[in-house]
């Protein structure tokens, strides 16, 4: 081992390690680490890589179902979707880099999640993006929205994977800490999944993709630290994405995966070469020897520390079968990508790095992973919200609707998704704008439905209900297009877990999510945790973003929210109690954020959803929209605007009826001839169903309110976001 100066307490602190953690390192090594070793421990034990604050609670989430091929623990989750195919998917955060450099931060976020998915042998077929920004009035918001959206599009469009949906929220709680969560869904043959466990003593360890530079050194530790005014200093840790190289990497990897050369494969994400090699070695129960000087390098004079901790993008690590190196190299040469044998699998159980022959680090693999800290952080249960104070309607319902549809919460997101190529690959069946996107399983008549959802204001008021609601809404959005929900991925964005209140939010949300997953048979198969999302002690809203997929067995039988016919009857499915607590109505029209969020009754949710899905699968219903933000009247208006067909609605005058956000509800538009049969079936199944209107004309009409023309409604609904972005 090279002689190096002793590690100082300041260096330990700089690496984000506590004294106790440093003690463990001393015990593991039986000696003092050198700087490279300290760096390796620090990234492996960062919150981002070790999940030290959340592991305990994550273990409580249900992860199994007969159709789950691979749950959490690998690069992404894998579920069987029938016909010998598997869907592989995951969501991941890139919050901190996107706040510092929105374009590149968002772009490299998309690149990272794509790699997690094609690492496992899948061709990526769809991207999603769940975005949370500060208040529109905040000076930085516009610039951040522009940069993030351009970055998501810039990367996804270039690699040729359609971005088919997502969400956008604005709230002052994100002013200093935006959320950029990206999800990728891929498709593979169910019997050709690739895993990351290294195996085969003596097998070559191969590095492919881009060269290693000094980018993002300590990126993983940055994602685990709070922001402060020194943030500027950390700037060079931002990386520039190269989607062109990523596209080549996808093609080259998939080509190599068509042969039998690969024993194990892992992308280099956070903590780069360190994390990927250690994980591969640990999963396989083997050791790994690396020749650091063999790693392709973009810059001269890089130290082993820098090579091991670099977060350069577009790189992968593989263990190959001996003798297959030349054939593999030929493929990467064809795609003009770097290829280098950088090490061997060993039976020592140690992770050893050599630079020009000299050992520069030597760490036992198991303890590096197993001894990683795990904290059962103290937490306090979020206190129950006070009951909702009385609500009086500030204006007539149609006026309220117009304001809501033309505001930051509910206005059209077209300005965003038109910057994303949503139809490349020519398999997009339902583009953004509906409840869930639908992508055809290539070459078949089956499809995957995909959505992401979370209602952070509910999670703030009641984490438990909010966590359950996020899962339920995903399930409902998949159901609303007729898909059979299969599984979810999550991206848990929270503040500083060392604060018991924040930890309480995390615990509450996970508990609520878990309950919903069990009740809906909807396991978690992958996910990501992003903590310390706060600036100057101001935490974000608790935001457990959920991404879900479902399968459609016959694409001819799916539903869409756009009205298709005049003289249809509109049927409301589910019970409407008129729950106004934490609604958009309160928030936007009365500037109030009180009361409990709507309760999620999981059994009812499932019962109503199964009923609706049955109608769609039977071909009886082709027009359906679930009820969420904004409630009934907003959903009805969205259906009318999308289909360019008017609506005449009738019901009680109570604002709770039209704007309440009761869960487990759907609107159906059905030809008059089918109405009776549907209502009878509903009655038999004890599913609440009632007629609330009919389609036709060019206006939206509600009871005795003044009708509004659809074109006017649409104009203001479409205008808010582009107007906001174009004004400065």
């Amino acid at each position, binding site marked *: 081992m090279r002689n190096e100066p002793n590690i100082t307490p300041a260096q330990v602190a700089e690496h984000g390690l506590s004294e106790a953690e440093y003690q463990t390192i001393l015990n593991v090594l039986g000696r003092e680490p050198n700087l490279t070793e300290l760096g390796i421990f620090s990234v492996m034990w960062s919150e981002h890589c070790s999940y030290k604050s959340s592991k305990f609670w994550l273990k409580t989430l249900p992860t199994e179902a007969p159709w789950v091929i691979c749950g959490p623990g690998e690069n992404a989750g894998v579920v069987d979707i029938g016909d010998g195919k598997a869907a592989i998917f995951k969501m991941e955060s890139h919050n901190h880099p996107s706040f510092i*450099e929105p374009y*590149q931060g968002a772009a490299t976020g998309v690149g990272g999640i794509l790699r997690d998915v094609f690492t496992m042998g899948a061709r990526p077929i769809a991207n999603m993006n769940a975005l949370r920004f500060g208040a529109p009035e905040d000076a930085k918001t516009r610039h951040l929205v522009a940069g993030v959206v351009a970055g998501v599009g810039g990367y996804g469009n270039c690699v040729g994977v359609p971005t088919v949906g997502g969400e956008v929220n604005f709230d002052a709680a994100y002013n200093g800490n935006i959320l950029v969560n990206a999800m990728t869904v891929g498709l593979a043959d169910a019997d050709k999944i690739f895993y990351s466990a290294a195996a085969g003593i003596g097998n070559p360890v191969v590095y492919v993709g881009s060269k290693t*530079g000094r980018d993002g050194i300590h990126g993983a530790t940055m994602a685990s630290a709070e922001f402060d005014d020194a943030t500027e200093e950390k*700037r*060079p840790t931002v990386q520039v994405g*190269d989607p062109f190289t990523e596209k080549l990497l996808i093609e080259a990897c998939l080509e190599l995966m068509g042969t039998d050369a690969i024993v194990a494969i892992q992308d280099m994400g956070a903590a780069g070469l360190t994390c990927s090699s250690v994980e591969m070695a640990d999963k396989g129960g083997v050791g790994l020897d690396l020749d650091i000087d063999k790693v392709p390098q973009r810059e001269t004079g890089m130290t082993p520390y820098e090579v091991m901790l670099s977060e350069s993008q577009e790189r992968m690590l593989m263990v190959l079968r001996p003798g297959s190196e030349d054939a593999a190299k030929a493929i990467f040469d064809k795609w003009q990508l770097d290829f280098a044998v950088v090490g061997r699998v060993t039976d020592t159980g140690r992770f050893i790095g050599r630079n020009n022959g000299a050992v520069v680090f030597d760490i036992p693999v198991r303890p590096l992973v197993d001894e990683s800290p795990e904290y059962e952080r103290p937490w306090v249960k979020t206190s129950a919200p006070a009951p909702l104070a009385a609500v009086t309607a500030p204006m007539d319902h149609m006026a309220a609707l117009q304001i809501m549809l033309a505001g930051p919460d509910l206005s059209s997101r077209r300005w965003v998704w038109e910057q994303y190529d949503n139809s490349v690959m020519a398999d997009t069946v339902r583009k953004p704008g509906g409840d869930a996107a639908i992508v055809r399983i290539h070459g078949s008549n089956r499809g995957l439905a995909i959505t992401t959802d979370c209602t952070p204001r509910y999670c703030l008021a009641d984490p438990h209900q909010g966590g359950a609601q996020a899962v339920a809404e995903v399930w409902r959005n998949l159901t609303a297009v007729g898909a059979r929900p299969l599984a979810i991925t999550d991206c848990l964005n929270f503040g500083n877990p060392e604060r018991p209140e924040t930890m309480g939010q995390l615990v509450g949300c996970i508990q609520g999510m878990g309950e919903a997953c069990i009740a809906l048979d909807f396991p978690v198969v992958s996910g990501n945790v992003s903590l310390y999302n706060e600036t100057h002690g101001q935490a974000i809203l608790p935001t457990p973003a959920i991404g879900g997929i479902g399968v459609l067995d016959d694409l001819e039988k799916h539903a869409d929210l756009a009205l298709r016919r005049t003289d249809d009857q509109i049927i409301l499915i589910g019970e409407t109690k008129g729950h106004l607590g934490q609604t958009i109505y309160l928030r936007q029209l009365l500037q109030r954020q009180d009361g409990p969020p709507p309760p999620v009754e999981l059994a009812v949710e499932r019962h109503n959803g199964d009923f609706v899905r049955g109608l769609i699968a039977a071909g009886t219903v082709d027009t359906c929209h679930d009820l969420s933000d904004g409630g009934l009247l907003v959903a009805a208006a969205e259906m009318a605007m999308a289909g360019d067909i008017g609506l005449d609605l009738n019901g009680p005058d109570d604002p709770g009826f039209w704007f309440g956000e009761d869960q487990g509800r759907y609107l159906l538009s059905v030809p008059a001839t089918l109405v009776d049969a549907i209502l009878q079936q509903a009655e038999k199944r004890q599913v609440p169903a009632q007629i609330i209107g009919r389609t036709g004309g060019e206006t939206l009409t509600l009871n005795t309110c003044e009708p509004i023309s659809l074109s006017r409604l649409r104009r203001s609904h479409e205008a808010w976001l582009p107007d906001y972005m174009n004004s400065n």
Partner: protein
Amino acid sequence: MKARVHVSYKTGVLDPQGKAIGLTLKNLGFAGIGEVRQGKLIELELAESDANKARKAVEAMCEKLLANTVIENYAIELDNE
């Protein structure tokens, strides 16, 4: 007065465009090509005729808009200076 602002990636920042250009030049048969970097050149016409003031103004423009100082450097050239 005319100002020319040259914006380029900081050293150490990956320049995917430059990389691809270098590759293509090699594929086209050009030999002896080392690193290739692509930057932006922004040319501005300014009403200001005092060079000092002009430089100050352009510097402010760079900091505020023209360069992304997280990953880019800038250099300013003024006509008649």
